[in-house]
């Protein structure tokens, strides 16, 4: 499933963690967002992995207590996959240079 870029789509409020001042958004492709349940509850402590277009693991982070995650990637297609006590979820996104915000839902299998 491909998700629209939230920042571009529905002007959701920026819930991502602040970026370090040293990060140059002219150069970086940031993929950030939050993991939540179907009920909209934030999932902290979830393991979110970034898979490249061939499905190969590229990076993994743990969400903050507010469910926030962030990656520094490159423009193109990526898959985000979350594992958590509240269940798992997956999402494919197309991203461009700058900040790309996404929301990732998890549900018990």
């Amino acid at each position, binding site marked *: 499933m491909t998700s629209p870029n939230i920042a571009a789509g529905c002007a959701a409020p920026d819930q991502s963690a602040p970026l370090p001042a040293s990060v140059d958004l002219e150069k*970086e492709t940031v993929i950030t967002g939050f993991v939540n349940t179907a009920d909209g509850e934030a999932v902290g402590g979830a393991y979110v992995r970034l898979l490249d277009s061939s499905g190969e693991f590229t990076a993994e982070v743990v969400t903050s207590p507010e469910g926030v995650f962030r*990656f520094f990637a490159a423009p193109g297609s990526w898959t985000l996959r979350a594992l958590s006590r509240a269940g798992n979820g997956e999402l494919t996104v197309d991203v461009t240079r700058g900040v790309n915000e996404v929301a990732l839902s998890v549900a018990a299998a």
Partner: protein
Amino acid sequence: MSRDTALVSADWAEKNLDAPGVVFVEVDEDTTAYDGGHIPGAVKIDWKQDLQDPVRRDFVNQEQFSALLSERGIGNDDKVVLYGGNNNWFAAYAYWYFKLYGHRDVVLLDGGRKKWELDARPYSKDVPSRAKTSYTASAPDLSIRAFRDEVVQAIGVKNLVDVRSPDEFAGRLLAPAHLPQEQSQRAGHIPTAISVPWSKAANEDGTFKSDDELGKIYGEAGLDGSKDTIAYCRIGERSSHTWFVLKELLGQQNVKNYDGSWTEYGSLIGVPIALGDEPGKA
């Protein structure tokens, strides 16, 4: 070495939290994870603060390692169970380190923090107080540590295993994608290195794949069992994970970790670099 002597399961760990002579040690890059909750009774080692020399670009020496373990209350005869986040990268790095300094009984907790979290096992915020010991580290075993000159000479001769992600290998990314990409060194890989991302060796929950699966992965990638092997990544932590797989789980002889890794190699003047997805020529 083998799986039975180098690895313990989360079940084993939970049953042995209070076992005498067993010390759990959480090793992380980001030690706020420990502070927010850790395996009950575990002490922490900070990858940067505790394991790197504060001035020289190197890791702590024999005396510093002895002092660190004494201060944390770890004895020479204790069974040390290492675990951490990032799929045990830094725990594997510490394991390599404990081996380098001659610790006899050290194991990795299979799956590390992730498996523990996903299994919904208990955490504690209590920091244990352990009586100080007088730990004596052995002289470093350099048969498991590779330095840059040896790596340059290994091009086209030994197995070089690049365990970074395919995009880092090809030169499209300079660092793992959870880190900013601004780096001083050149992108690419050491010519003739095969690309076997560390993650191939792990299941999604962070546990290691079976020996059969692991043997197949490295065999198909072109690892020549009759040659010596050097593993590298960006800063030597992910390659510790692969070093652990090749040396400790699969029992391959003569496997070294190049902890200087790409941050050093990619900054050297005049060494050959290959770009793209193929190993490249010597």
